[in-house]
């Protein structure tokens, strides 16, 4: 009980201190760009009404989900194929390394040429940026399948889908999740950027509108919402990961206990 309380104090103390410092330091601020925290928080419920959540936040999140899911499916599928055949991998590797090295936001102007400025463009931009970390990590993970296990599977006659599901994807899953985590932060960046370029709704669009209209407290609330969204998504990701990789973390913990 005391341990829990202490942990809670530790978790809350610094954030509370930082917010207090922000509150006090900005309380008398007359600087247009740094409005008092009080003003920002007061603006929050006025700006982020249920209607706005529906018309701006929801479309953003849906685009992100669509692009991310597309990238995950494509990345894992292609990565498994490329990782399973050393020759295919040797042919593809330089091209993949180059494509991965292109900073994803420069895809926005290119994809705008093909897909205009609608939702398709945004989903494609997000998918095109997120696919590389997933793909390359899957390739690495599939390549590193334990040869003893692969031999065992072969001698038991496990092939096809069963082999793919129980051996290849399972042993590659820690790597795949590492790729998915990288892809998530790229996805959020691309979601915001694609909306800053050309859009009529969405979080990125709204925040830029506030900034151009010099509605500074409103802009700050937008930054806070983006921060909260990033935080929430990473919490969701972590809980999914913990569930999916529970066996792996358990294995590692027991390996560490008995070296």
């Amino acid at each position, binding site marked *: 009980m005391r341990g829990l309380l202490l*942990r809670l104090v*530790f*978790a*809350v*103390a*610094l*954030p509370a201190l*930082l917010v207090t410092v922000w509150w006090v330091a900005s309380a008398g601020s007359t600087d247009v*760009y740094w409005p008092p925290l009080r003003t920002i928080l007061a603006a929050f419920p006025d700006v982020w009404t249920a209607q706005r959540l529906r018309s701006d936040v929801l479309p953003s999140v849906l685009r992100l989900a669509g692009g991310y899911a597309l990238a995950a499916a494509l990345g894992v599928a292609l990565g498994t194929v490329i990782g399973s055949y050393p*020759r295919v991998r*040797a*042919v*593809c*590797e*330089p*091209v993949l*390394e*180059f*494509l*991965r*090295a*292109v*900073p*994803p*936001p*420069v895809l*926005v*102007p*290119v994809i*705008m*040429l*093909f897909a205009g400025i609608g939702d398709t463009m945004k989903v494609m931009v997000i998918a095109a940026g997120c696919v590389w970390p997933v793909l390359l990590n899957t390739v690495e993970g599939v390549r590193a399948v334990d040869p003893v296990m692969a031999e065992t599977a072969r001698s038991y006659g496990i092939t096809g889908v069963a082999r793919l599901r129980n051996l290849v994807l399972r042993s590659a899953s820690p790597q795949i999740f590492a790729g998915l985590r990288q892809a998530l*932060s790229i996805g*959020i*960046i691309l979601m*915001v*950027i694609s909306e*800053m*370029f050309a859009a009529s709704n969405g979080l*990125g669009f709204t*925040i*830029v509108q*506030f*900034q151009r209209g010099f509605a*500074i407290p409103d*802009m700050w609330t*937008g*930054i806070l919402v*983006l*921060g909260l969204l*990033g*935080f929430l*998504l*990473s919490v969701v990701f972590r809980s999914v990961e913990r569930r999916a990789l529970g066996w792996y973390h358990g294995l590692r913990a027991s390996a560490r206990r008995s070296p």
Partner: protein
Amino acid sequence: MRGVNAALGAAGLAAFLALGEAVPRLGLVEETYFPPTSRIAEALADETGDSAFWTALGDTLTGWALGLAIASCAGIVVGVLISVVPYLRAATASTIEFLRPIPSVALIPLAVLLYGTELRSVLLLVVYASFWQVLIQVLYGVQDVDPVADETARSYGLGTWARIRHVLWPTALPYVMTGVRLAAAVALILAITSELVIGAPGLGKRIGVAQTSQAVPEMYALIVVTGLLGLLINVGARTVERRALAWHQSVRGEVAV
């Protein structure tokens, strides 16, 4: 085997370039959207003859290098400090977990208001994004310190500074290097993004200008340049990592016992 792989890789690259030439020539996609490889190469050659291109490249690299340097130093100092001072780690964990996932692009409007299209705008975004990469790796690295080694150092009467120097730092260095390598890639992305979106001088801005003026081959040429830059940074970071960690097991490889 290595030679075969290199040859296959070169073949793959050649096929990729040939495909880029053939697809628009055969009319599978419109040439105005997707110019053939030779047109892009031509535009690239034109770019390299333009002094404005080199200035832009210099601007991008300045933002990248300065931002990365600031973020790395800050990440290492803060990381070591948090780990060494008792209770600081527990006290900062929740704050770090909260601040880290905040997408740095959320700061774009603020950067525009505060610094306009100056270098400082770019630096704000680059430093914020890459700082976390380094910090998290430093924290992981310090956690990895062998308690026996640390206790040994203590019992030999090594002070805090000496323990940081001789026990903590060598253990954390591989993690620090990984952090810096990740941060280098992130810093490039953010440098070019902020130029593209904010309009700070650099390659990103040139891409934006090429796009709005319908100079499609030039736009592709500049994108190829950013990809090559990213590739160079990756290779460079890996080389530095290998040099700096030449003594470390992960690079040295397992020694036969």
